């Protein structure tokens, strides 16, 4: 029998802010839940994020941002993912993203936004339940 492929997740931090506490906790929790997690560190440009997603053949991308620049950076990231043909990758986000921006972000194709107070279990469950099917 073939080994089940581990879920591959890229945790990425766009923007200049350095609040990586949440990103690291989520990365570790997903890893402890048996996923393959790639965390690329702070201040990743949209180009770097799309490139890493492609190179690492990920199923899921988690974006973390607390600088307030999500309205500039998220559209760019989603556009680049589309350009790379990564439309089947599931993208979720977390950090400080005001409620009133959530629907706009979801229209871009971001599946879910996890605000402060979310437990790591909720995120794990969400990823497992919403995992895109691979051909």
């Amino acid at each position, binding site marked *: 029998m073939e080994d089940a492929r581990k879920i591959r997740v890229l945790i990425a931090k766009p*923007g*200049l*802010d*350095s609040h*990586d*506490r949440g990103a*690291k*906790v989520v*990365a*570790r*929790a997903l*890893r402890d839940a048996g996923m393959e*997690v790639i*965390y*690329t*560190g*702070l*201040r990743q*440009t949209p180009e770097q994020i799309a490139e890493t997603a492609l190179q690492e053949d990920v199923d899921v991308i988690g974006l973390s941002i607390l*600088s*307030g*620049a999500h*309205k*500039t*950076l998220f559209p760019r990231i989603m556009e680049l993912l589309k350009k790379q043909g990564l439309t089947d990758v599931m993208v979720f986000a977390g950090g*400080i993203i*005001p*409620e*009133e921006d959530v629907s706009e972000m979801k229209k871009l194709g971001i599946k879910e936004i996890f*605000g*402060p*107070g979310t*437990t*790591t*279990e909720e995120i794990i469950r969400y990823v497992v339940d919403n995992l895109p099917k691979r051909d």
Partner: protein
Amino acid sequence: MFDKKKIDELKKERERWEQTTLPNWIRQSSERKNEFRSSSNMPIKRLYTPEDVKDLDYLQDLGFPGEYPFLRGVHATMYRGRFWTMRQFSGFGTAEQTNKRFKYLLKEGETGLSIAFDYPTIMGYDSDHPMGKGEVGICGVAISSLKDMQVLLNGIPLDKVTTSMTINGPAAMLLAMYVAVGDKQGISREKLGGTTQNDNLKEYFAQKLCIYPPKSSVKLTTDIIEYCARNLQRWNPISISGYHIREAGANAVQELAFTIYDGITYVESTLQRGLKVDEFAHRLSFFFASHNDFFEELAKFRAARRLWAKLMKERFHAKNPRSMWMRMHVQTSGCTLTAQQPLNNITRTTIQALAAVLGGTQSLHTNSFDEALALPGEEAVRVALRTQQIIAHESGATNTIDPLAGSYYVEALTNEMEEKATEYIQKLDDMGGAMVAIEKGFFQKEIADSSYKYQKEIDERKRTIVGVNNYQIEKEEYPIKLLRVDPKVEKEQVANLQNVRKTRDNRKAEEMLDKLELSAEKDENLMPAIIEAVKAYATLGEICSVLRKVYGEYKELIVI
């Protein structure tokens, strides 16, 4: 402090109580938990008695306020003389907008300014750098050149207010701009009062806003300490910061230990410049977080003062008592704020602020209740400041000095915090110092582990956070008026910057940048060359680029 015979008698009585009275009560209703622990995981006993502080020697271990070991406070009158400085960190948008906010805060009774810079500025980029797209003026004010600093401080007399600047990588550049504005206002340099955070070590494992590799960053930090000791005698060149260490996930003991160890490292680097310890140590200042665990926090502040005093006296042989003072700024803990039921944050902040006051802080920032959601709005900022004013004027906590001294629990906890921090200091010494610990990822790993553990406790409901994992409400309805920074700010700021580049004497600016490069290559103190460069309107980005060229850029060591 206690007679041995009395302690023996007490011990017998305690044992009797534990065998007779206590079991009856526990049989009727068991305790809430099998064991109680502080937020740093230290076991907390059911009851503290003189037994727990039996070795305390009042004169040696506590002393009097304003005297060694300064446990009871650095000043002899503390808040009976004057309250702490109520300093609210602020800054957003353009220099002009922040200047208005500053004037508002001064009118409302604030006694010192505190500048928050935006991310491009913090990272040493001009507002038109591609990395800063969407970030200009968002989390702080954008300062790209002396022109912006002149607008920011317009109408504010720099000899009357003191200003704290939360800036590290480019601290020398922002301080140079402040000095240049002072020069233009005609204020002599020894009258300029304020603080630059300028603590680059903690950047590598806590705040993580690093520009250059660690060695060059510590060199810049030390340049400022040296320059201030010789030229800006009222300036606190550094605010050695535990706040970010804590916010990154460290516990209270780690915060205390790592901060003090960074302090030790800066004292050593400055001594190597040929300054004597008493020529600069009195100007070193500290910055801590005040988190939720009320007693642990106030014990931490007290322990920090005694530990630092001892180190300065015994390790560095300071003679001047002022060199042994740990003067501190405290900020309530941002990471304890919840997005759920945000008004509850006022209560959290009040408890944290009270711990800071009972811990004897010199300066305090109280967070606004809406900060888990966005930048604070005006009402939220006012409530935060009022919280401090209520503690100062209404609570009575300020009428006597160090009112919790002598509490068996507080003194035992203070001792324990100091002991645990001292163990870390020993460990770091054995490892070869702070730089080695950073290269090995030691601090990073310690913090990541604590942070993960804390989150797990919340997720598993072993730690209750009201409104988050308990006492939730179905629908959050509190209408918060979010402060949004207009996207036009970026355009406006970029236009201002380009205008500066167009109207300045470009040859002069370039000449000063070349001089700076030469000075950096010769490993001189860079402050004088940087002051000349900002006065020629060389921009922050240009100056930082010169040093990026000479020193290289830091590449993050990722530790999950």
